[in-house]
């Protein structure tokens, strides 16, 4: 029986506003252009920004007003859109996961956002913001009842009030671990230099920044200090400023990590992985092992020093919105070696006999890239008559060092039901693909590879591709044959 069309809580308009603000960030080129023109700058701040905010607020209210949903025992329907009206029907049969999220603005009113992940050629995520826990439970129970009736697997994961079942494994991340994650996963260290580079391209903006700095009393003191104390003091001062900036960036990264993964708790029950986390924005996310397409284990430079790892479980073509801190898939932010081994055992990954790629790869890359880079540098030095062209020769040892470092970390193995490919320079990234999830295989052999009886093998899973470069051709052919046979014989569910 069809239920009536329902409206979400008015608080959901806050959700719409936040989404619209995130979309409005895409207008930054227009703003940057307007800010660069002195005549337009006052208009931007006095009229432009307030007008945009007012427009978005009205739009968000209208979006909430036109957003309705309806559900019954078989499906859920959504009506949305202000000018461009949409009507979406989602059968429970196509729903794979049901997740709950509780943002800060919903927490105050005991409301939740219900996320339904659907399967299909264009994986879609349907979200109903601002509904009560009672309503979320009702939708869940109808979904579970439908799945039981159709003898499909149960895939709901977020009732915090249900008594917890005995776990196969539980992992809780304390503050210290989150601090470690903040140190390991610091994207600000890359964003800030890029941002600085972009700002430095605008002469107008640089002038604004320069004018602002000149007005600071500290700058006068620094200028006087450098003039009296000389170059050495200036260098020491510059180093101190650099270190302080680095510490500030890392502290900010730690703060963001703590806020995102506060009270992170992972539970593994059979083939179901589930975690809850978040200080301000609470997230409850699940993952069923039979949907696993790829496992990625990362250990960057800082993680290597801290002896920690990050692990991501990916399913087929994860929804565009399924990003946690810039990572797609089900993410476990920080693991010790023991915890990683335990999780890998639960997933079914077994240790294998790691094989190296051929060292001839290093020699050829040094020859080719060294010649290109060194030759270009030598030509530039000769053309501009600046430094000696022989400087171009320094490219060879530098590239050799870089390539040797990468070759050291380049390994692979075919295990019992898994293929693993590792890469990296100082840190490592290891990709594990279940053999039965392989979609396509490609063996390549160019002229250089053929000289060394070598080949390259590319393996596509449902979510990611991994490549084994410059390895023994017979061994890769054998791996390809084995994987193809394994996939061909596999008749179970694979997504």
């Amino acid at each position, binding site marked *: 029986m069809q239920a009536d069309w329902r409206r979400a809580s008015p608080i959901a308009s806050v959700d719409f506003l936040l989404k619209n603000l995130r979309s409005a960030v895409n207008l930054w080129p227009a703003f940057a252009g307007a800010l660069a023109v002195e005549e337009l700058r006052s208009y931007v701040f006095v009229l432009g920004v307030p007008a945009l905010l007012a427009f978005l607020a009205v739009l968000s209210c209208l979006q909430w007003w036109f957003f309705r949903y309806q559900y019954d025992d078989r499906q859920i329907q959504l009506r949305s859109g202000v000018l461009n009206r949409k009507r979406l029907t989602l059968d429970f049969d196509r729903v794979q996961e049901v997740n709950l999220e509780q943002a800060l603005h919903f927490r105050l009113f005991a409301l939740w956002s219900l996320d339904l992940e659907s399967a299909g050629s264009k994986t879609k995520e349907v979200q109903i913001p601002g509904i009560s826990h009672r309503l979320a439970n009702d939708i869940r129970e109808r979904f579970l009842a439908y799945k039981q009736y159709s003898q499909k697997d149960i895939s709901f994961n977020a009732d915090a009030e249900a008594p917890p079942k005995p776990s196969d494994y539980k992992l809780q991340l304390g503050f210290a671990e989150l601090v470690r994650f903040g140190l390991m996963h610091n994207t600000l260290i890359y964003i800030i230099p890029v941002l600085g580079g972009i700002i430095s391209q605008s002469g107008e903006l640089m002038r604004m920044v320069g004018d602002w700095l000149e007005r600071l009393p500290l700058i006068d003191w620094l200028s006087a200090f450098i003039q009296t104390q000389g170059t050495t003091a200036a260098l020491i001062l510059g180093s101190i400023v650099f270190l302080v900036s680095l510490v500030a960036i890392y502290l900010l990264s730690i703060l963001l990590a703590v806020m995102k993964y506060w009270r992170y708790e992972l539970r593994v029950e059979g083939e179901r992985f589930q975690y809850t986390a978040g200080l301000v924005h609470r997230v409850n996310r699940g993952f069923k092992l039979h949907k696993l397409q790829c496992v990625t284990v990362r250990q960057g430079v800082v993680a290597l020093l801290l002896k920690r790892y990050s692990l991501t479980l990916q399913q087929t073509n994860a929804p565009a919105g399924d990003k946690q801190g810039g990572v797609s898939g089900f993410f476990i932010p920080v693991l010790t070696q023991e915890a990683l081994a335990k999780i890998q055992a639960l997933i079914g990954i077994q240790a294998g006999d790691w094989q190296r790629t051929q060292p001839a790869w290093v020699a050829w890359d040094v020859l080719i890239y060294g010649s290109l880079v060194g030759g270009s540098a030598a030509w530039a030095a000769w053309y501009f008559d600046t430094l000696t062209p022989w400087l171009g020769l320094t490219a060879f040892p530098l590239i050799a060092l870089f390539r040797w470092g990468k070759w050291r970390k380049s390994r692979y193995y075919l295990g019992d039901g898994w293929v693993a490919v590792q890469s990296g320079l100082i840190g490592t990234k290891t990709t594990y693909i279940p053999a039965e999830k*392989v*979609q396509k295989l490609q063996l*390549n052999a160019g002229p250089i590879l*053929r000289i060394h009886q070598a080949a390259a093998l590319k393996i*596509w899973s449902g979510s990611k591709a991994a490549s084994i470069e410059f390895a023994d051709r017979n061994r890769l*052919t054998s791996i390809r044959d084995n994987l193809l046979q394994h996939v*061909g014989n596999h008749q179970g*569910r694979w997504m």
Partner: protein
Amino acid sequence: MQEHLLSARPRNDWRRVDPRYPWLLRTHATLGHLAAAAGATFFALASPELRTAPLLAVAAGMVCASLAFFTLVWSPRRAKRLRYLLRGRDINLEKGFLFWKQMSMSINRIQHLEVTQGPLQRLFGLATLSAYSAGTQGSDLAIPGLAVDQAHTIKTRLLEMINIEEQEPTDAG
């Protein structure tokens, strides 16, 4: 056990594409070179300093040499090296000589199939059969240079094999 391995299959089992395919490649190459020559002519007309006899002769010679290479050498070899193999549980494609590639896709991973014909392919009665999987970019497998009937026949055969796969008993969860 060995005969199930792809690498153990004899070369004769691999099938070549239609004999008209080299002519399609030659036509593509000729049209491409004509476009390049037209572009070079435009630049020569627009830049007086480029309109010197030796430079024009060199440019014309390069275009002709390239055209001769692609039509007389590259096209027939490319077509000759393009082979496909349909086995009980997978479809395979091999191409290239200098840069050799061998692609494989299991039947039970094919999401959908397409037979496409561009305007030049229609001229020669040829088509491309493409098999798409659920993998990321580049995970499709396309066999060009097939006669239209042959492409549809292979597509029908693949669909039958996929249906047989789906009807076979599956493992529990």
